[in-house]
């Protein structure tokens, strides 16, 4: 019996570590490129000297050093953390709806977060003066939860994947309309703020943003990892999950809270970013050839980081000095993945 069970392979750790090594390599490459390339070019040799110097003696006063430490590095780190967070958030929604097309953007959750953030920016700014990132995150979190519950309410009535998508898009439009309505009646000053933000960008990232996103996203991702076991059982459906001893209701609540927390961080700090939440987990699963959550969650995080750092690099360099919105770039790469998934699923169902 013993030698028999050894041939029973459950999961493929070799492949997992191969994929992780690939992603880490790509992330390193992306980080190096990101630090090097920009409107002010800094020679690679200088960069590493500055990095080394900066780490030992603090940030230098030269322009180059300032650009590196105050602009490029925080922006890059923010893109990496939020990209990873967005991917995991999408993955959790896919687990929740048992639907690979679910994601914070297509289900209108990002738009809901944007709406509440917009309202906060326009109306609360009057009373509070400046709006701190924490307030924005809270607003985005509230918006995410609000829209998630609306989508949930509808999702009980429909069982087809494409209907869920349509509902999400419609809800997204409604939120967009409410946001536009507020913008119409807002002061010009607030609108400029909002427009910049709502385009979605990592530009202007500060160390404070990086610290805040790390402080919220990393526990969120650890939380998701701690749920690996029930997540894999939940893939068999609620009936089986319950019969194996999962308390389904609290589990679902925790899933939604974690997913909303992660996507709210992204929406609050970088604006709505489209399709990362669907495309990245899908690409990750295809690379891993497995749905095992213990593999997919960490790999999705790093894959999302790589994806967003590269997209951000393109966003700021392709038409430099004009910067593209990050969502523009992620859509170009992300939307085709979604179309491909829809077509492939359709074929399977027939």
């Amino acid at each position, binding site marked *: 019996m013993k030698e028999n069970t050894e041939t029973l392979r459950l999961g493929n750790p070799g492949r997992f570590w191969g994929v992780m090594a690939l992603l880490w390599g790509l992330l390193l490459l992306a980080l190096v490129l990101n630090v090097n390339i920009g409107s002010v070019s800094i020679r690679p040799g200088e960069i590493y000297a500055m990095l080394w110097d900066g780490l030992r003696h603090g940030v230098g006063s030269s322009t180059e050093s300032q650009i590196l430490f105050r602009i490029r590095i925080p922006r890059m780190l923010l893109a990496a953390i939020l990209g990873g967070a967005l991917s995991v958030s999408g993955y959790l929604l896919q687990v929740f709806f048992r639907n690979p097309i679910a994601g914070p953007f297509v289900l209108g959750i990002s738009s809901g977060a944007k709406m509440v953030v917009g309202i906060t920016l326009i109306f609360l700014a009057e009373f509070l003066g400046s709006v701190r990132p924490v307030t924005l995150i809270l607003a985005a979190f509230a918006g995410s939860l609000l829209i998630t519950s609306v989508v949930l309410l509808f999702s009980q009535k429909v069982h087809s994947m494409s209907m869920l998508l349509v509902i999400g898009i419609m809800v997204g439009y409604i939120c967009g309309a409410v946001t536009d309505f507020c913008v119409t009646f807002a002061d010009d000053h607030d609108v400029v703020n909002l427009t910049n933000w709502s385009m979605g960008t990592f530009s202007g990232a500060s160390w404070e943003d990086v610290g805040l996103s790390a402080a919220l996203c990393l526990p969120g991702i650890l939380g998701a990892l701690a749920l690996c076991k029930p997540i894999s059982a939940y893939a068999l459906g609620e009936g089986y999950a319950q019969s194996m*001893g999962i308390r389904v209701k609290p589990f679902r609540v925790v899933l939604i809270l974690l997913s909303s927390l992660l996507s709210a961080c992204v929406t609050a700090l970088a604006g709505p970013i489209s399709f990362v939440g669907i495309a990245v987990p899908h690409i990750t699963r295809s690379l891993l050839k497995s749905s095992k959550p213990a593999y997919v969650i960490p790999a999705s995080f790093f894959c999302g980081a790589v994806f967003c750092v590269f997209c951000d690099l393109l966003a700021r360099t392709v038409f430099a000095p004009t910067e593209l919105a990050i969502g523009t770039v992620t859509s170009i790469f992300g939307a085709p993945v979604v179309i491909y998934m829809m077509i492939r699923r359709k074929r399977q169902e027939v």
Partner: protein
Amino acid sequence: MEPYFKTEDLAVGYDGNILIHDINIRLEKGKILTLIGPNGAGKSTILKSITRHLQTISGRVFVGGQSLQQWQPKELAKQVAVVLTDRIRPELTTCAEVVAMGRYPYTNLFGRLTEEDKAAVWEAMERVHGLELAQRDFSALSDGQRQRILLARALCQEPEVIVLDEPTAYLDIRYKIELLDILREMAREKGITVILSLHEIDLAAKVSDYLLCVKGETIAGFGTPEQVLQSHAIESLYDMEAGSYNRLFGSVEMPKPEGKPRVFVIAGAGFGIPVYRELQKKGIPFATGILFENDVDFQVAQTLASAVVSVPAFEEMTDAHFAQAARLLRQCAAVIDAGTPLGQMNEGNGKLLKLAREEGIPVTIWKEMTAC
């Protein structure tokens, strides 16, 4: 023997509306209970209620001497495992992984499988003859394979009770028998108590220790197959207006052709059955005889023939029987000789053939008829 599974005045339904009430089941360890009854009668509702997927309305359910509500979810998972009708399609998941999920109540916080767990997965897959499927993608399986893997998942949970909702739906006859055979084996060897619902009444009677007839508001019957399947119990359970169920064979016959008999079939020893079925398909009413009542032909003739001339088991065929058959035969336009061998005991049949030839009624021999 103290029942392992028991319900007391259980009432089940949806949203507080009672669908079925007064369900009282007592089931000893290692017994198989099958729920039969028409579609929509509430078989699934009962099964969902006893597995806590559905809130019970009143009454109580006991598993292992403890009421369902008292069990902690994870402890209950070690008692009761399920095979549901849900069509699940987990992506990129191998069969071994699906089966291994059955270890859920036993593994640690991160679901790490110990050697014991792996051995249990192996054993469960072996039980259902599914080892060669271990590395296959679950969503690429055929219905029969999928059902076996889901059963392995349930077995891997090492439960005392397995509840299966229509496990044989979508399966072809070979897999049906294979699956039920595995259940029987589990009940016999591991003392697992099995509760399932089936559409195939013939199989239900053959595999179960107890049957529960579910129809309408209350339970129409609960007991051993012999107790429950009294004459016409099936016909009334399913409101069958046409056709019939033979409880000796557990087989179903189509409705008998209506009208006065036009053909007389001389049969016996099983030769008559294919003839009867063919006439039924063509819608030709017929009479048949002379049959002994312990003849297989008699079982089918009873339900398909407009008139049967029969002799009680182990009694002699007399002139009276011949006279009765001759009267019927004279009214018919044709006679079919099913090919039954003629011996001392049924020489009346030989006399009938002779009579037909004398009277000028055409006699066809079945073998010759089917040959051309």
